[in-house]
């Protein structure tokens, strides 16, 4: 094992501070947007930003949580690291939810936090928090800068780690004196990470095994996870699936990896998945998992999950393979590289038309359904109409809960990277700031933020950013006056004891929007929506729609917690 690194030391000509070096390092990484909030410990960095003529924008959110969720939305649609800057102590701790969220959903972030000066570190100084200790369990990696000499190298490493292999958040904690003091020399040498060598290319022998298994299989099934999207593997996946006529199901985060309107697509699987998908998982004899981590919301009770299947699992993170579901054909690889190799090796296709027609029969016999009272609105209908009016081209972000599941079920995602939602951590308050980040990343796209009335109130102050930047995000509140999913669980599992789940007092969301100089409409009927929504889409500015939907509507079908995936309620022919 060689540990040599070439150290190329360069004298700094003008007196620069550590903060100047940091800003230069960010420019070198091609950063175009920083989401942040200033404070004492990052004042040197904010001053360096002020003085810098670098070509990037800083987005001042109104809460650090808004900043980090915006960075997640940015990272998700742009597939490059979102950058966040916050101060020490409370600034850093306000980021914790977003860091954990990014870790669970494998989103690349570089999070820069201020820290109190090294002279007072460890004394419980004003606005001091142990950021390294707090963020260690929820980051892919983290650093505390010990000297400005190391800044360029650490920033290079941070971006590399965040964006390669399985993406994830990296925290860089920077003490104030290090960013404030003049920097005499910096380490410009390249980094060397002997302990970090992600496997990108698959083992061809394992791919051969998978190809053989596909040839043998009578009832094959492909499961798409977010890894397909992270690896940019949608096209090659579609080629293989179409050539060999393989049915496809998806996780929540994998939606859009394969066209939602494709005849071979069975719908999402899992707790609120389609009957067809869950039965396909139960009956298949070969399950090909591409970039999903077998989360418990997908698998439900593991004893009943894919009981008859040979399991193949393609994942860039070796630790995911075999973690939850025993795997017969493990393939550690980038999803695109693995599928390309599979396409090379898999020549003649198997015939399993009987299986496909059985699935097709299920699709027709047990479709997703909902009550559609013409006089009232329900979110399922809303999502179908949003899809209709946007032609499925919009980027949709959501919070967590009923509206999220209905978006997943009824906004048929037909293209990759249009779906931004908090899957693993299930974070309320995520959807709206994530929409801001997505819109900043891709200014020409239509971005629609579907939020519940509960989650929206956790981060609605970020309407300031819409106002300030005139971002044309369309906010659609699915307003049922309740914490819908909590209410649904209380109805089903707690004998209708609605403990603290009904939001009987609500603000006037339209007036709130107007307070932020944003157009707002209250929508109470389907007719209202049909009339106003096309106009809203055409309008080049932010709009808030307060859509009043029925409170008592529940998300179906459903697998109760602890039950097997085939044990569904709310399936209707």
């Amino acid at each position, binding site marked *: *094992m060689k540990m040599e690194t070439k150290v190329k030391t360069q004298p700094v000509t003008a007196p620069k501070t550590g903060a100047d070096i940091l800003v230069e390092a960010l420019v070198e990484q091609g950063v175009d947007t920083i989401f942040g909030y200033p404070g004492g410990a990052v004042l040197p960095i904010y001053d360096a930003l002020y003085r810098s003529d670098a070509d990037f924008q800083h987005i001042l959110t109104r809460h650090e949580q808004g900043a980090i969720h915006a960075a997640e939305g940015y990272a998700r649609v742009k597939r490059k690291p979102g950058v966040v800057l916050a101060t020490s102590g409370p600034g850093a701790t306000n980021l914790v939810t977003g860091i954990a969220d990014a870790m669970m959903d494998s989103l690349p972030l570089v999070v820069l936090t201020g820290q109190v000066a090294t002279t007072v570190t460890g004394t419980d100084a004003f606005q001091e928090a142990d950021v*390294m200790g707090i963020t*260690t369990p929820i980051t892919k*990696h983290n650093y505390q800068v010990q000297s400005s000499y190391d800044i360029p190298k650490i920033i290079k490493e941070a971006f590399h780690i965040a964006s390669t292999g399985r993406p994830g958040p990296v925290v860089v904690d920077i003490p104030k004196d290090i960013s404030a003091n003049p920097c005499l020399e910096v380490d410009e040498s390249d980094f060397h990470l002997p*302990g970090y060598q992600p496997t990108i290319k698959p083992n061809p022998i394992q791919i051969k095994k998978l190809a053989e298994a596909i040839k043998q299989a009578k009832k094959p099934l492909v499961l798409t996870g977010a890894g397909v999207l992270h690896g940019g593997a949608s096209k090659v996946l579609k080629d293989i699936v179409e050539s060999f006529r393989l049915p496809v199901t998806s996780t929540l985060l994998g939606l859009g990896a394969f066209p939602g309107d494709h005849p071979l697509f069975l719908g999402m699987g899992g707790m609120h998945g389609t009957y067809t998908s869950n039965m396909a998982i139960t009956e298949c004899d070969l399950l090909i998992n591409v970039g999903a981590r077998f989360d418990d919301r997908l698998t439900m009770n593991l004893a009943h999950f894919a009981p008859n299947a040979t399991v193949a699992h393609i994942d860039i993170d070796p*630790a995911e393979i*075999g973690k939850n579901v025993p795997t017969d054909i493990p393939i550690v690889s980038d999803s695109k590289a693995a599928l390309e190799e599979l396409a090379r090796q898999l020549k003649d296709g198997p015939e399993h038309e009987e299986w496909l027609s059985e699935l097709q029969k299920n699709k027709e016999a047990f479709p997703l359904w909902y009550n559609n009272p013409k006089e009232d609105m329900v979110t399922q209908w809303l999502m179908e109409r949003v899809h209709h009016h946007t032609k499925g081209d919009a980027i949709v972000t959501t919070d967590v809960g009923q509206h999220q599941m209905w978006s997943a079920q009824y906004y048929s995602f037909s293209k990759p990277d249009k779906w931004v939602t908090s899957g693993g951590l299930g974070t309320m308050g995520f959807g709206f700031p994530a929409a801001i980040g997505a819109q900043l990343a891709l200014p020409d796209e239509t971005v629609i933020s579907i939020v519940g009335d509960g989650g929206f109130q956790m981060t609605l102050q970020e309407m300031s950013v819409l106002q300030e930047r005139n971002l044309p995000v369309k906010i659609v509140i699915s307003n049922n006056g309740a914490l819908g999913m909590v209410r649904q669980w209380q109805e089903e599992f707690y004998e209708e004891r609605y403990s603290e789940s009904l939001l009987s007092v609500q603000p006037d969301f339209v007036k709130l929007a107007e307070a932020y100089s944003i157009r707002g409409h209250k929508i109470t009927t389907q007719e209202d929506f049909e009339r106003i929504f096309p106009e809203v889409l055409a309008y080049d500015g932010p709009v808030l729609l307060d859509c009043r939907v029925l409170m008592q509507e529940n998300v179906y079908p459903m697998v109760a917690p602890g039950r097997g995936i085939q044990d569904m309620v709310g399936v209707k022919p």
Partner: protein
Amino acid sequence: MKRIITLVVQNRSGVLNRVTGLMQKRQFNIESISVGRTEQEGISKMTFVVDVEDHRKLEQLTKQLNKQIDVIKVTDLSDKAVVARELALIKVVSNAQVRGEIQSIIEPFRAIVIDMSRDSLSIQVTGKPEKIEALIELLRPYGIKDIARTGLTAFARGQQPQVAELTHYSLLK
């Protein structure tokens, strides 16, 4: 089942925290840890004795450890021929009458007396954990005042025997 797992890590602040934190999060029970520098600058070695339920859990543990950026190499030594030692310091109640007796007890263990006071003796012993256990049990009747143990440290023997069944070479089975 108990396993000896060694990690070669980059000697950066927070590495031990990261490794133990991950074991805590994923519910692995650490029996002992020892950490020290290696012959290479900037590289340290950690030796863990961990109690894991089954091979699947074990695989998950080594994979998660391997995932850490600062971890360069993870080795499960449990099925190898290893050299493994622990050091213990034992302070035992003693007066002039029993001193000789204690001396004769510790001799077969190749332990030595490293400190003495009017009413106590401090004994240093190195060896396999079960040897240390055995000595502690023999000394217990005299009254133990204090024990400090380092935890196991280990590496693979220079030569691995070519046998199928290694159980009797292993310390922990």
